[in-house]
């Protein structure tokens, strides 16, 4: 039987007596996989990383990395002996060394290993050339975050933990750094757990994502499934990417909604005919059609470059969102009527 690279088995992560994430079980199967943990601020995501790194004690369950138990009730391997690197959200650059020397600390840890990146290579990739002679107090928080990231990457750890690694980086730089980061992690086969509150970042970087809500790991799956097949209303609400509307199951692949009429598609879970359900409607599920007789009132319109997101109000005062390509011939103003294409067909129907 193939062994998992990292196994977290029934661990309760506790930042304080009130703030706990209970009985988390999670596995990373292969070296080089990237896992992103998503959750609201203050829920204890950082505590998970700190416990895996050995900076917080683990009182229940086991954490095993490459077949070696790192922590359990009896065993507690010291942080320096785990070969786990972590880039903190508030950077932990040594204030009395310049950026280059700080990054060099990472390389020193890797000096006995053959593989890995060269220091100058990573400096170039993360655009640190201009600040490498500066001290931590002379650089911006985004620059400090990149330097901290470079240091962690250079140490070529068995497991890399990144706590909101791009949170302070400028938006125009962020996407480029995201691409670089993914490329480096994949090429170097560095297994990574990233904590973030940015779902787009998580969906892009992660092979798998975990959603942490209300003290539990609510869903652990690949990004596509997390987005399209959320397993609870809490996850839907957290991702804030759809609306739940009342509907009645009318057949093997159809529902009836008072607001939208007949909806067809494949159910991802079976519901008996006649069941009252809450149907998840995501912005891409509906299509705009000026000629349609199903008209809803526009209450908001957001321009997002490639598309518009129209927020429409149904007859039962529900707000639903619809994507429209931004090249669409005309725009609809607020209070105007907006046509929805019929019949409504959704590839996969998610209900609760």
């Amino acid at each position, binding site marked *: 039987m193939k062994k998992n690279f990292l196994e977290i088995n029934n661990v309760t992560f506790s930042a304080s007596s009130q703030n706990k994430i209970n009985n988390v079980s999670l596995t990373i199967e292969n070296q080089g996989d990237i896992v992103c943990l998503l959750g609201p601020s203050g829920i204890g995501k950082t505590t998970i990383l*700190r416990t895996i*790194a*050995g*900076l917080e*004690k683990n009182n229940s369950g086991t954490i095993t990395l490459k077949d070696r138990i790192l922590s359990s009730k009896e065993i507690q391997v*010291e*942080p*320096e002996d*785990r*070969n*786990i*690197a*972590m880039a*903190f959200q*508030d*950077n*932990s*650059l*040594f*204030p*009395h060394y310049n950026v280059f020397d700080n990054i060099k*600390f*990472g390389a*020193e*840890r890797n000096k006995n290993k053959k593989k890995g990146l060269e220091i100058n290579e990573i400096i170039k990739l993360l655009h640190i050339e201009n600040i490498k002679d500066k001290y*931590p*107090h*002379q*650089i*911006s*928080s*985004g*620059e*400090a975050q990149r330097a*901290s990231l470079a*240091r*962690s990457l250079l*140490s070529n750890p068995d497991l890399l933990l990144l706590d909101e690694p791009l949170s*302070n980086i400028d938006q125009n730089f962020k996407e480029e750094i995201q691409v670089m980061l993914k490329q480096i992690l994949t090429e170097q086969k560095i297994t990574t757990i990233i904590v973030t509150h940015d779902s787009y970042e998580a969906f892009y970087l992660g092979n798998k994502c975990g959603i942490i809500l209300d003290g539990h790991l609510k869903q652990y799956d690949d990004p596509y499934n997390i987005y399209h097949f959320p397993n609870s209303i809490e996850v839907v609400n957290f991702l804030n990417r759809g609306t739940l509307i009342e509907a009645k199951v009318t057949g093997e692949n159809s529902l009836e909604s008072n607001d939208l009429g007949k909806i067809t598609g494949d159910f991802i879970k079976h519901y008996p005919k006649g069941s009252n359900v809450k149907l998840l409607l995501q912005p891409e599920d509906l299509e705009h059609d000026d000629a349609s007789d199903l008209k809803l009132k526009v209450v908001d319109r957001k321009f997002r470059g490639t598309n518009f997101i129209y927020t429409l109000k149904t007859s039962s005062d529900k707000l639903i969102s619809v994507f429209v390509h931004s090249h669409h011939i005309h725009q609809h103003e607020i209070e105007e009527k907006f046509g929805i294409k019929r019949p409504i067909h959704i590839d996969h129907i998610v209900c609760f």
Partner: protein
Amino acid sequence: MGNKINFWFISSLLISALVAIPIITVLGSFFEPISDYYNILKKTFLIDYLTNSFFLLIGVLFITFVIGVGCAYLVSFYIFPAVNFFKWALILSFAVPAYIYAYSLTAFFENYGTVFAILNNLFGEGNYNAYIPKFDGLLGAIIAISFSLFGYVYVLTRASFHYQSQNLVELGKNLGFSKKRSFFNIILPSARPAIVAGLSLVAMETLSDFGSVSYFGVSTLTTGIYSAWISFDDLTLANRLSSYLLIFIIGLFILENFSRKKAQFHTSSKGGHRTKTLIKLNGYKSFLAFIFCFTIFLISFLFPVTQMLYWTIIFPQHLENLDVFKLFLNTINLVIISSFFLIILAFISNYGNRVSKSKLLQILNTISISGYAIPGIILAVAFITFISWMDSNIINYFEMGSIKSFFIGSTLGLVLVYFIRFYSLANNGIKSGYAKINYSIDEGAYLLGYSKFKTFKNIHVPYLKNSIFLVSILLTIEIIKELPITLILRPFNFETFATKAYLFASQDLLEAAAAPSLILIIIASFFILITSRYILKE
């Protein structure tokens, strides 16, 4: 990471235990039967001792706070004439011990003293004595102690202001705060740990002061302790009075910790720290800032130095008879050995506390730094008592011969008691340096494969070199000025500038005391100057 027993824990425990020994001895007096002297004292002078000590403390804390924070604020945030000079010149007040300041104050204002001579020379002979104010008694002691100690508040507050982020100042502007409101709501609270650390040092020094209060005839707990020991030969009574002082200090610490709650005062670690833009003062504001700093410099340093210099010049024979080289070697020897051990051990203790995160160690640490509040006389006596007890109860039992000569009247004993006395100084300095290192820096090092020892050696020690220099200055000045411990525990025929000055003064030869006092001030000033340049550069 729990209360693990490791090297750091054991080291910290041993250091705290060593420093705690005399404190336990002193507090142990509560369990000994009280003497008749204590009952008499309770009915007569005890209230005087307590009230005088209290008012002395309040007066000194108030003046040192206003002067120390005022000067630190002006030189840290504004540009005005001679501001760079004042930055280091104000530290020179450290070089003047309170008892030498007291002699200068008296000599200057006394009947037919220096002021009288100046007036006589300027305006001809006259009865000026009636118009010359007299700074003696409690007021004299408050002034003498305040001007010799305000440097603690100044140095620590200035360092805190210096490292304060420009963002804080701009935040105030952003919120539409006036300069006054920014100062009271942002700048001052963020420097609070430094101010409190400075004031704590001042409080402990004040409560330990013997030289100036005895000179001005103010009955405080320290003079009471001295009388109990010298006049009544009652060590239990002396220890009982010392324990009141100790309780006072512990109370202050608890109050300070309670008021600070769980606030952490780490420096910003998210970057964005920029050099402060200093504000250039113009017109009368510039003049007032200059006058404020100059007056403090004049009163705290120029005045006592001039007075001592004046006496040394008009009585040159006292300088000629002084073996300056030998006194210098003796003094410096003590400084180097003691500072070395104090700094090394304060480091170990603080790092132990940091990695162990043990509540027990924190409590021991708090108790152990109270050694600073115990007057030197009591420490010396408690040490002699402890060694004698060890000698007769333990060493004698194993028939190993006497250990008294190793510890009493030897450099080793002197250094050990200095250690107990000045441990809080070294500890507080290193501790406030550590407060600036965010825990995530340690954690970052661990995760780069650094062991705890390697983190200590390669990360903490280089980063804290500023703190080490600062602590070294403070220790050097303190040890050079230290009087009672040296007086009691020094080897036979071993003199320092402080003991020499005291011996002359105690024989009412103030003019002879001027030469060693002046040299003491010059040496102390030299150490301050070489290190202040370093501080300013940083």
